[in-house]
Structure formats: C-alpha cells, structure tokens
C-alpha cells in the first residue's frame, strides 16, 4: 500500500530561489527537534477501511451475543414492594457500596464530585510530563510522604471499617513499595514496577478500588447489603 507522489523532491542549488532554513538557538533552549514520528498514511482509505472492519466485527459480536443473552425484565414496577436489596445499575454499585460505609453526603455527593473534578484537571496539573518513575529521585523523602499518606488513608478507612476499599488500597500500596526495597530488581515484573510514575500508581489505585467496589456491590451483596457468596 505504498503511496508515491507523482512529483520529485530534491535540493535546489539556487539559494536565491530556494531559501534554506536556518535555526536560531536562543539561550536556555536546546536544539532538540521533535522526534521523528514515522511515516504517515492517508486517512482515506487506510483509516476508513480499518474503522469499517472494526464496525463489522463489533456488529457481528453484538448480534451473536444478543441472540443468546436476554435482557432482564422483571415484574411491573410496584412502589409498595421494595426488593431487598434494591440495587442501582452496575456502574453505580461502587458508589452504593461506599454508601454502606460512609454518610450519604460523603459517599453520594463528595466522592463522585471529587472524582469527576480530579479527572477533569488531570491534564492541567502538568502531572509528571517527563514520565519520571516514582522512586528515581529523593527516594527517602518520597517514601516518607508515601507512607504518611498511606497511614492516614489506612486509619481513615479502618475507622469507617471500609474493608472493600482498604484491601485494594493495601495491595496497590504494597505493589508500589516492592520496587523501593528491591532497587536492583531481578525480575522483569519488578523492573516494570520500578519504571512506573506517581500518576500511574494513583490511577491504578483508583481503578483497583473502583473495580473491587463494583464487583463486590454486584455479586457479593445480598439482603440488607450483607455479604453473600454468589455461588451459594
């Protein structure tokens, strides 16, 4: 699928006709040019074709699933008959799980608002543009801050007995500490963890907590929001 332009490109020897580009390097800047990002392709047909294939595969998968899986339909809505437990749609069950631990103003209003605001401001905080790994520089100071934040969070969650938030928090924190105590990590996995940045850890923690809460809320909560095993 190579594409060739019909015209030839070359250097002109006549500097009057073809001006040369000159680079001025001012103080406190570098002559670094933007890295070569590789060849380019025409959107038509290369992107359009690929998108078409994606759409076809997606439609086939959806139709196949829709043939064998039935959308749920329960009895006619009855305001007098409250199911136990009454559950929100699955993507809000993480919040409902939080409501179990924290007062509604915190779990239902404060936390979702903070999450949305945090997501929106991510690009404006210039978080770690260089992509510097968490434990590369000033390791001791960072460890103190990290442990301080972790202990504060741990105590807060333990006071509210929010176990389904606490467990993924502890796991992610433990994973983040692995590369600190193994500076010359032998395995590939530890080397991977070593190269992770602080935003990476924060987002991974957020996803871990959100996934745990949603899974627990969907499958492990029964009457009165008590713990049930889905296979019993």
């Amino acid at each position, binding site marked *: 699928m190579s594409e060739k332009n019909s015209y030839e490109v070359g250097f002109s020897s006549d500097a009057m006709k073809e001006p040369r580009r000159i680079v001025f390097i001012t103080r406190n800047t570098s002559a670094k040019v933007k890295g070569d*990002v590789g060849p380019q392709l*025409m959107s038509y047909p290369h992107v359009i074709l690929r998108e078409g294939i994606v759409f076809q595969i997606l439609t086939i998968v959806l139709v196949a699933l829709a043939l064998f899986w039935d959308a749920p339909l329960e009895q006619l809505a009855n305001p007098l008959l409250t*199911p136990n437990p009454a559950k929100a*749609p699955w993507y809000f069950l993480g919040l409902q799980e939080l409501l179990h631990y924290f007062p509604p103003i915190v779990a239902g*209003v404060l936390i979702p608002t903070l999450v949305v605001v945090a997501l929106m401001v*991510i690009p404006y905080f210039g978080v770690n543009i260089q992509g510097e790994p968490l434990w590369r520089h000033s390791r001791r100071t960072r460890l103190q801050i990290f442990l301080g934040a972790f202990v504060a969070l741990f105590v807060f969650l333990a006071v509210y007995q929010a176990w389904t938030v606490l467990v993924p928090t502890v796991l992610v924190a433990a994973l983040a500490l692995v590369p600190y105590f193994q500076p010359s990590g032998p395995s590939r996995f530890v080397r991977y963890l070593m190269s992770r940045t602080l935003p990476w850890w924060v987002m991974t923690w957020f996803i871990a907590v959100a996934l745990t809460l949603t899974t627990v809320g969907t499958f492990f909560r029964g009457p009165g929001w008590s713990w049930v095993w889905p296979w019993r």
Partner: protein
Amino acid sequence: MATTVWTQRLLEQVRKTRVWRSIFRRGPARTNRTRSLAVFGNLSLHVLPVKVREKSLRVRATYYLGSISFFLFVVLTVTGILLMLYYHPAVPDAYRDMKDLVYVVANGTFLRNLHRLAAQAMVVAVFWHMFHVFYRGGYKPPHEFNWVVGVGLLLVTLFLSYTGYLLPWDQLAFWAITVGTNIIGYVPLLGRPIRFLLLGGHIIGQNALLRFYVLHCVILPLAAVVLIAEHFWRIQKDGGLTVRDDNEREE
C-alpha cells in the same frame, strides 16, 4: 476477473456523469490529492485528519476503543429509534410495551437485547478508553482540552445509560432509579430542587418517566453528538493521536 473489469468500466462511466460529478466534485481517490478531498470534502469525514501517523494505526496504540465507543453509540441510536416505534412513555403502558416486544413484535426480544447489550458495552468501552488514554499519556499537551471533553462524554454516557434504565418500568428499573435519585437528595441546598426537577415531582411516577424519556431520547443524545463531534475534530486540531517516540525509553 471479467466481472471486475466490467464493473470498473461501469463505475468509470458513472463517475463521468453530471450527477455524480455534481455530488463528489473529485476524481477517483487514486492520488493523495483526491484522497485528501475524499476526507475534507465530505461532511461527516471532514472532522477527521487527512493524514495519520502509521504508528497511531497500530492496534496497540488505541485498541480502537474510541471507535468502538462511537460505533456502539451508532448501534444504540439505530436500535433506539426502532424501539421508540413500539414504546409509550406512560404508566403502565411502558411495561406493556416491553411485554409486546417479547411476545408480539417480530424480533422484538432481539432488538431489546441488542440495545441493552450495546448500552452496557458502551459504558465499559468508554471507561476502558479513558483509562487506556491515561496510561498512554494521551491527556498531555496539546491534548488537554480533548481529555476534558472526554470526561464530559463519560458523564453523558453514564446519564444516557441511567435514564434508559427507568424506561422498561419494571421492578428492576423503578428501584434502581429510586436508589440513584435518593442520593441526589443529599446534595446540600440544591439536592431537593434538583431531584424535583429531574422527577417532575417528589416520587418516581408518570412525570419522572416522561422526563427520563425526553432526556434519554432527545437531550442527552444531542449533547453526545455535539461532544463526539468536538472530540473527533479536536484530534485533528491537536495534531493527531499521541504517538510514543521511539527514541524515548519505553517501559
């Protein structure tokens, strides 16, 4: 082979006609110039970039998650419009219409399954897309604002899914919306007015169903279309998708 030549000749003849040329205003897309025209001379394609980096087309760069989210929205629009033909946003007709879809309408169950499935899939796809973009560093300059538009699209997707949840008017729908809208009531000062505005009253009844229906079928889809257009157009204006420089160390 013979048929191919025959169809090609026919196509060339059609391309020469006045009507064709009045519509497309370009020759066959065999040169880079006409291929560019194919994109920016087309109303729906012109928001896309004319050229893309080869690297940004690799599956690992995107997993096509943004495209999948958009295509799910298309599937939802088509199946949603078809479902509207069989639906009355009234109590208890809404529930009766669900029963009709199952027992009376030809392929009604399939239609509803497809809509429900695509809706769940879209929520998953949009979340996954956002996390993937984050891990790829796609929010970094000059893509800051497109990330914010993306967060807006995530919220619209969630509200679309949520408002659609009430429409079958069964026990599942009613109580899920009850749980959700009770939370809104806890917002300080504005909570109760917002809840009243959303439900058209103090309880989930006929008014709430109608409001959720209008939100689900008109207001939120329009908001989604505007935001999607901005989201796509921004990719082009911000200089294409984020591609990792090979010179930078990866992992």
